[in-house]
């Protein structure tokens, strides 16, 4: 043991006090010398002779010192320190090179870490909870939710330490200071805060006792953002009253800032309300009402498997005869785990595509920097040759060049992380036109840091290793003689590393551009698509009604009255109402059912979009009634049931039958369904999204068919230029029901939601494509410029021998174009493979291998390449042949 301590002490001493160690060695050697001299003097030599003889016998002092230094075996660390200092200094001497390299890498790494950070927040983040690793998501009984009764029974069975649940699909109307707003709420079971343990910054969550659903408890917990932004962050918030659905609730607590909700996916609901009659009027009905998404807490000693078994057993035990499948668990996974991602195919695919794109950007940036480093190393060929001659091993040289790459990667990563923070900070501030309460954080959490460290390492290796190996390979003799071995463009020399790098860059940039252009065209197409109704001069009011406040009959009467009043406003041509609105968040229902036409059994299996609309709907919306008539006031509850269908429905299902007057048996609350008569055929349109293939549609009368009133839409068509202000329309509606949430927008603005995915995709990929193109062109420019400068002598000779200006220019550009063509060819091939899985994002009619896109991008690439080569070519023209020849 003492030996190890001594050894360690010596090593540390050598590392941190090298001067001291060196001095001691010198001292020792001097002493030895003096003793030898004394001996020589004693043997009778003259003083100077004694000294000379002693020195001769001594040998080379520096060699001895070097050997001693080697035995101390800290050379690796010493060399590394030396390299770090030296390369940093030499890089700082070329600030342009350093800046260009750092910016390239920085941008690429910023893109990578931003996308990764967002993806990890959306897909992976663990919710903020007490000991979140013991919480599990549970799905059983064949559905995503269970009923309140089932939850209560399962909780009492004691299978897990605690069982609670939530519902993120509810909403409530909050009476704000200016207007009533419809908020997406998190409905939670009574024991939610007890089981989950959400971190609070003020107050507390409600307890199971006080929040029993049967009591319809008037307690609420709000999020930090709600408190700060909507309530102004006033200090006396605990105990204050908020009105939800026209009922007063007391605030018991405020959730900590930045807490991640258990719902995941970046969702951050603003209010947590207990399940109760006010929020969910039919939560306790005897039918199988899907109310609660289960979350369980495992006991300390319970494994995942044991918990799952216990829950399955409990499900079996508490199931009533109608709930046979309650014992089947199809999800039992820790919260924040990756098992949930299976159900998020589209989102994951989207992030997957982005990650690949930014990965490619990083590759291009690395290729750029590698090219720069390669050029730099070649210029220092002489220095390297001398060092090799003096005895440096190849590894030593490669190490130094790697350290250079490491510095660039390091600075680049720091720049990238700073940029990432800026970008995410900006994104968090910009309100996305989403109706969902999403919160984005610029977290520099462990995962992102590890990811960046890995990126740095990969970048260093990519940028520096290959050039380093390339430059130190082969004979150093030409370098010593100050010749550039790459100057002579012999036939076999064409496939040099630099050329290959640029070909690769061009190929990758082409792939990015193709994808970007595809999305831009997609966006343009989507913009041109006819939604099937008149978008201009139309305003739509979204009405969120407190559940249970109106019966279907009284609700319909309310809407009729509202529409009556709106028609009386100046400038209004017509007004109508409907349950859903096309292409908006709440657009109606897709129904699949067996429809019996004109009594002909067994009927057809039809899939159609089901909408409930009021009188004059088609006129107000500007939908052509091709055959038949509009719905009228007379079509109401109690009168014969009538429906309208669109042309696609006629084409698909009413084969050969006369549509007007056809009798359809549609699915209804009973097994027998109900009979309806078709009174109109309307023009086709878009219903759920702009990119959908043509859907069949059935329009039913609002008053006749709607059976619960939670929200509705009112449409107002005005004369061009005479539109009433949205606030006026909102005022009229709010007067009729003060507890309802009213939001009035022009139809065009509301459609922005439908466009958003395409816009985001096109914008992002367009930006990335442009970035990739810029980087690739910088690379191409650099290589052509470098090649011209190296071929100065050759060009000089050609001109002296009589080559015309054009010939010289063609010579330079030709090489660049060959590179660009090769790169484009590879890029086109790769792109056609990569873009096929993107068809899900594209609107109909646009193929992933759309020829216009491919041809256009290739032309763009070649054009820009020619331009990038043109500038050095012009410089080549100015070479004076005499000067060029002399410079050799």
């Amino acid at each position, binding site marked *: 043991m003492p030996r190890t301590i001594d050894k360690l002490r010596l090593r540390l001493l050598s590392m941190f006090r090298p001067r001291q160690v060196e001095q001691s060695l010198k*001292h020792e050697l001097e002493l030895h010398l*003096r003793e030898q001299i004394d001996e020589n003097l004693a043997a009778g030599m003259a003083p100077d002779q004694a000294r000379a003889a002693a020195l001769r016998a001594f040998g080379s002092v520096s060699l001895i010192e070097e050997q*001693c230094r080697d035995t101390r075996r800290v050379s690796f660390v010493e060399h590394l320190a030396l390299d770090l200092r030296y390369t940093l200094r030499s890089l700082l001497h070329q600030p342009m090179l350093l800046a260009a390299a750092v910016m390239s890498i920085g941008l690429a790494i910023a893109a990578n870490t931003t996308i990764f950070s967002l993806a990890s927040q959306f897909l992976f983040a663990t919710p903020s909870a007490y000991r979140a690793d013991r919480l599990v998501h549970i799905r059983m009984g064949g559905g995503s939710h269970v009923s309140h009764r089932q939850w209560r029974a399962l909780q009492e069975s004691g299978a897990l330490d605690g069982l609670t649940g939530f519902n993120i699909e509810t909403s409530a109307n909050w009476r704000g200071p200016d207007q009533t707003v419809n908020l997406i709420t998190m409905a939670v079971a009574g024991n939610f805060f007890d089981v989950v343990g959400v971190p609070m910054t003020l107050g507390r969550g409600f307890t199971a006792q006080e929040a029993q659903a049967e009591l319809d408890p008037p307690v609420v917990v709000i999020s930090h953002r709600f408190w700060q932004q909507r309530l102004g962050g006033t200090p006396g918030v605990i105990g204050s009253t908020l009105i939800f659905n026209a009922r007063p609730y007391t605030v018991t607590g405020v959730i900590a800032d930045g807490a991640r909700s258990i719902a995941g996916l970046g969702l951050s609901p603003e209010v947590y309300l207990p399940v109760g009659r006010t929020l969910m009027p039919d939560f306790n009905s005897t039918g199988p009402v899907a109310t609660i998404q289960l979350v369980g807490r495992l006991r300390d000693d319970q494994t995942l498997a044991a918990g799952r078994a216990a829950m399955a057993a409990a499900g079996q035990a508490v199931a009533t005869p109608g709930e046979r499948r309650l014992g089947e668990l199809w999800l039992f996974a820790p919260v924040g785990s990756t098992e949930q991602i299976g159900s998020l195919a589209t989102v994951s695919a989207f992030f997957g595509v982005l990650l690949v794109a930014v990965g490619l950007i990083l590759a291009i940036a690395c290729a750029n920097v590698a090219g720069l480093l390669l050029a730099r190393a070649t210029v220092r060929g002489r220095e390297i040759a001398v060092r090799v001659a003096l005895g440096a091993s190849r590894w030593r040289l490669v190490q130094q060049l790697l350290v250079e790459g490491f510095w660039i990667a390091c600075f680049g990563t720091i720049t990238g992380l700073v940029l990432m923070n800026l970008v995410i900070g900006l994104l968090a501030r910009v309100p996305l036109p989403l109706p969902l309460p999403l919160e984005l954080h610029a977290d520099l959490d462990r995962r992102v840091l590890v990811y960046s460290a890995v990126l740095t390492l990969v970048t260093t290796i990519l940028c520096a290793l290959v050039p380093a190996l390339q430059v130190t390979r082969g004979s150093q003799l030409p370098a010593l003689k100050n010749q550039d071995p790459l100057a002579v463009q012999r036939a076999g020399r064409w496939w040099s590393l630099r050329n290959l790098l640029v070909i690769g860059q061009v190929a990758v940039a082409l792939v990015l551009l193709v994808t970007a252009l595809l999305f831009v065209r997609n966006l343009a197409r989507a913009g041109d698509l006819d939604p099937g109704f008149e978008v201009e001069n139309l305003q739509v009011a979204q009405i969120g009604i407190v559940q249970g406040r109106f019966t279907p009959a009284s609700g319909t009467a309310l809407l009729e009255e509202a529409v009556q009043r709106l028609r009386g406003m100046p400038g209004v041509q017509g007004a109508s109402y409907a349950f859903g609105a096309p292409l908006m968040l709440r657009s109606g229902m897709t129904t699949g059912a067996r429809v019996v036409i004109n009594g002909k059994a067994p009927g057809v299996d039809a899939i159609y979009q089901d909408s409930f609309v009021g009188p004059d709907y088609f006129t107000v919306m500007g939908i052509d009634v091709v055959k038949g008539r509009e719905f009228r006031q007379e079509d109401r509850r109690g009168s014969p049931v009538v429906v309208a269908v669109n042309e696609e429905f006629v084409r698909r299902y009413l084969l050969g039958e006369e549509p007007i007057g056809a009798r359809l048996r549609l699915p209804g609350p009973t097994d027998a369904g109900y009979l309806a008569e078709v009174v109109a055929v309307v023009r086709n349109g878009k219903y759920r999204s702009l990119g959908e293939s043509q859907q069949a549609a059935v329009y039913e009368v609002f008053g006749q068919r709607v059976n619960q009133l939670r929200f509705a839409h009112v449409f107002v068509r005005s004369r061009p230029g005479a539109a009433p202000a949205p606030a006026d329309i909102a005022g009229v509606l709010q007067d009729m029901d003060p507890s309802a949430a009213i939001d009035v927008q022009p139809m065009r603005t509301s459609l922005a939601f439908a466009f958003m995915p395409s816009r985001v995709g096109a914008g992002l990929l367009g930006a990335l494509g442009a970035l990739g193109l810029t980087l690739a062109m910088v690379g191409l420019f650099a290589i052509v410029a470098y090649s011209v400068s190296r071929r100065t002598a050759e060009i000089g000779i050609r001109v002296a021998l009589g080559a015309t200006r054009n010939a010289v220019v063609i010579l330079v550009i030709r090489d660049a174009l060959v590179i660009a063509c090769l790169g484009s060819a590879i890029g086109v091939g790769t792109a056609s493979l990569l873009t096929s899985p993107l068809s899900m994002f594209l609107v109909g009619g646009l193929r992933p291998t759309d020829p216009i896109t491919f041809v256009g991008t290739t032309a763009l690439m070649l054009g820009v390449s020619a331009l990038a080569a043109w500038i050095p070519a012009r410089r080549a023209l100015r070479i004076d042949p005499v000067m060029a020849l002399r410079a050799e």
Partner: protein
Amino acid sequence: MSKPSDLIQGTLDLLILKTVALEPRHGWAIAKRIQQVSRDVLLITQGSLYPALHRLEQQGWIKAQAGTTDTGREAKFYALTAAGRKQLARELESWDRLSTAIGLVVREAE
């Protein structure tokens, strides 16, 4: 005068360890002592001595301490550590084995 570079590196270690086993000595004194005891056959140059001393010190078999020489100069004295003593015994043993083996081979009766 045979050069110590003919010696295998291991035997130089053995010589140094043995020399400082009896009493701590500084580098010059070690070289002189080996020369004396071997009757001028083994002459160790500084080029081999000091690297060897440093290596032995790094291994932890000898320890350096400050001291004064006979001539009154400040010098680094090397002493054997406990681990060094064990190493010395090991080296002696292997040297014995080696030299016996060589002896057996070269003195083999024709």
